[in-house]
């Protein structure tokens, strides 16, 4: 293809891509090309993928409308999952409650008042089994948003799927498993950074060997942004974390091309429309360039940054919550124009509580309006070539490169070491807090308007929305479920499984996944598995700073 120009190369790729069976024309009948631009410019599906990872983009396949859900017991969330699938959702994304995110059982004293509130409570194989009852795991992909106990959740997920006759190599989905951003932003950490990274290494190696359809890490900028970073910080910190996981896998003896194609990304869609689009374009360009030129990846799949997007929770207001539908629609549109592979839209009531069923449906409908009514999906990278968007894309790239250089210097050439040092020295945490403070001050000083908050407040005293209430009954119910598990299991198997886990944890060369899967099958609880590992690994304590 060396003698072909960029356009011809793109056209060859485009022609071989499957297309959806729809007419690609405007509402008034004007036929549309799949992409626009000069013949020697960059086209989608071409390195460095600024314009998208696929030649045909949404003409082949729309993004996955992946709605994040979870509350109460596994039975409650299973019901919500089925509603999402019935309403046309195509992928599931599991939200776990705080105790589960921190690897605590629902009857742990620290779990008091938190069970089932922010997500679903998972204590054992019983809960994981109930969570996915009557859901076809061979066709619906599942994302599990969990980090510190990610390896434990993966083990439970494999154990319940194999019980149902779905082999691990059939399972498609994503484990968030991005522990670095936990220390930097989300703060749901358990073990110290290096010990946590050993578990990440084990999941990368295990899924590379045994689960060809599984994404081992969803490298997540979402939480970095929600914690207050700027767009460029979100972009740079996320990609640096991605580089760190690649370096980690290389230390474990894997090739970059065995790891990088299994990394997916997760970005925020905030309210500054063009800046967000530029951020996604820059992310693809930077990742491709660094994977090829810096890490020596030769597989195209390693170069292609695929990402999930969620609209910005932090942009939602409690005042006049209906206005949040408009915010979310604009943010979601930025994700789509930026070429996202999957999307979650927040519900209008999320400044107040977990979403009600009705609010969650409206949020999904918002994606469907973009996908099926607006016609924006006909043309790939429709903003490519805009002087403004191209310059903003370049600016995001420059700012991110400057941050890469700082982190690389901290790690003396290693992004992995730079990340860990930056975490241990509160460098990331400090920068994020500083950006959050600066933004808040600009609101307080009236330099920025938020509708319903510091202007246009008429209507703020309207009646409240009906919101989802999680009661203490759910907590009691879950503790009851856990007691049943403890009473009905074979204790000798539990002890044996915990011994194996402890022995394996002591030897840093051993992969912990087999021991965790055995423990899952023996109904060892999440808290027991995490507790056994904590005895070996210790616990991370963040020095509080303001």
């Amino acid at each position, binding site marked *: 293809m060396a003698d072909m120009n960029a356009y011809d190369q793109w056209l060859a790729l485009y022609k071989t891509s499957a297309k959806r069976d729809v007419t690609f024309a405007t509402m008034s009948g004007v036929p549309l090309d799949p992409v626009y631009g000069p013949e020697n410019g960059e086209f989608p599906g071409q390195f460095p993928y600024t314009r998208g990872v696929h030649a045909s983009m949404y003409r082949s396949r729309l993004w996955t409308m992946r709605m994040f859900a979870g509350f109460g017991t596994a039975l409650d969330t299973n019901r919500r999952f089925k509603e999402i699938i019935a309403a046309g959702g195509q992928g599931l994304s599991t939200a776990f409650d*705080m105790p589960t995110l921190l690897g605590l059982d629902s009857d742990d004293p620290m779990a008091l*008042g938190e069970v089932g*509130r922010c997500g679903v409570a998972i204590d054992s194989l019983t809960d994981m089994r109930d969570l996915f009852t009557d859901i076809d795991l061979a066709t619906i992909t599942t994302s599990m948003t969990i980090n510190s106990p990610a390896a434990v959740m993966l083990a439970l997920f494999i154990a319940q799927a194999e019980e149902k006759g779905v082999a691990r190599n059939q399972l498609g989905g994503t484990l968030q498993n991005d522990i670095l951003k*936990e220390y930097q932003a989300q703060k749901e950490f358990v073990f110290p950074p290096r010990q946590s990274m050993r578990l990440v290494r084990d999941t990368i190696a295990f899924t590379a060997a045994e689960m060809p359809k599984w994404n081992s890490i969803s490298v997540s900028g979402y939480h970095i942004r929600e914690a207050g970073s700027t767009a460029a910080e979100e972009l740079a910190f996320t990609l640096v974390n991605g580089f760190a996981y690649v370096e980690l896998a290389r230390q474990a003896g894997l090739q970059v091309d065995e790891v990088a194609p299994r990394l997916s990304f997760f970005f925020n869609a905030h309210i500054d429309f063009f800046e967000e689009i530029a951020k996604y374009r820059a992310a693809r360009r930077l990742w491709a360039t660094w994977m090829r030129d810096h890490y020596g990846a030769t597989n195209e799949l390693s170069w292609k940054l695929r990402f999930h997007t969620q609209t910005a929770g932090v942009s939602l207001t*409690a005042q006049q919550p209906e206005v949040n539908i408009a915010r979310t629609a604009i943010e979601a549109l930025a994700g789509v124009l930026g070429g996202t592979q999957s999307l979650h839209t927040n519900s209008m009531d999320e400044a107040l509580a977990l979403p009600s069923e009705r609010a969650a449906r409206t949020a999904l409908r918002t994606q469907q309006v973009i996908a099926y009514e607006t016609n924006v999906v006909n043309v790939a990278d429709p903003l490519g070539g805009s002087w403004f968007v191209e310059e903003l894309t370049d600016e995001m790239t420059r700012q991110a490169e400057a941050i890469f250089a700082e982190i690389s210097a901290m790690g003396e050439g290693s992004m992995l070491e730079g990340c860990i040092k930056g975490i241990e020295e509160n460098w990331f945490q400090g920068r994020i807090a500083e950006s959050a403070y600066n933004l808040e001050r600009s609101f307080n000083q009236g330099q920025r308007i938020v509708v319903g908050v510091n202007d246009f407040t008429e209507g703020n005293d309207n009646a*409240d929305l009906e919101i989802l209430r999680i009661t203490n009954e759910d907590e009691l119910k879950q503790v009851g479920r856990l007691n049943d598990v403890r009473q009905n299991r074979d204790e000798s198997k539990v002890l044996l499984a915990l011994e194996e886990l402890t022995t394996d944890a002591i030897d840093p060369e051993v992969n912990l996944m087999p021991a965790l899967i055995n423990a899952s099958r023996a109904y060892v609880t999440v808290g027991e598995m995490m507790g056994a590992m904590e005895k070996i690994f210790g616990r991370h304590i963040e020095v509080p700073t303001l």
Partner: protein
Amino acid sequence: MTIRVLVAKVGLDGHDRGIKVVARLLRDAGMEVVYTGLFQTPETVAIAAIQEDVDVVGLSMLSGAHLTLAPMVVGALRAKGSDIPVVLGGIVPKSDLEDMRAAGMAAVFVPGASAEEIMASIIEVVSASTSETI
């Protein structure tokens, strides 16, 4: 007199953006602010508040656990004979306001509360509690 505030995260909720921003705004307003970090229990907060001799405790809770844990912080303080007032902010639906006030919160900031409101309310709570002791 300079107002001393202990800001605290109780329970498992790691969302610390709000508490850090509010803490800095309180400092900008001339208050002294103590932050004890993540994953505190009602007991550790009460002990720190008494040891640091603060005028008010500010809790930030975004996980829904306020219904259980916020009253326990007030309970732990009172059990130690302290009358330090406690205020609460975060994702607290309006429908919880009555319960939270009944449980002894001196003020509750619902989502959307402005920095000005929080500041004014803290000053009011502190002056009310000190005038009671005179």
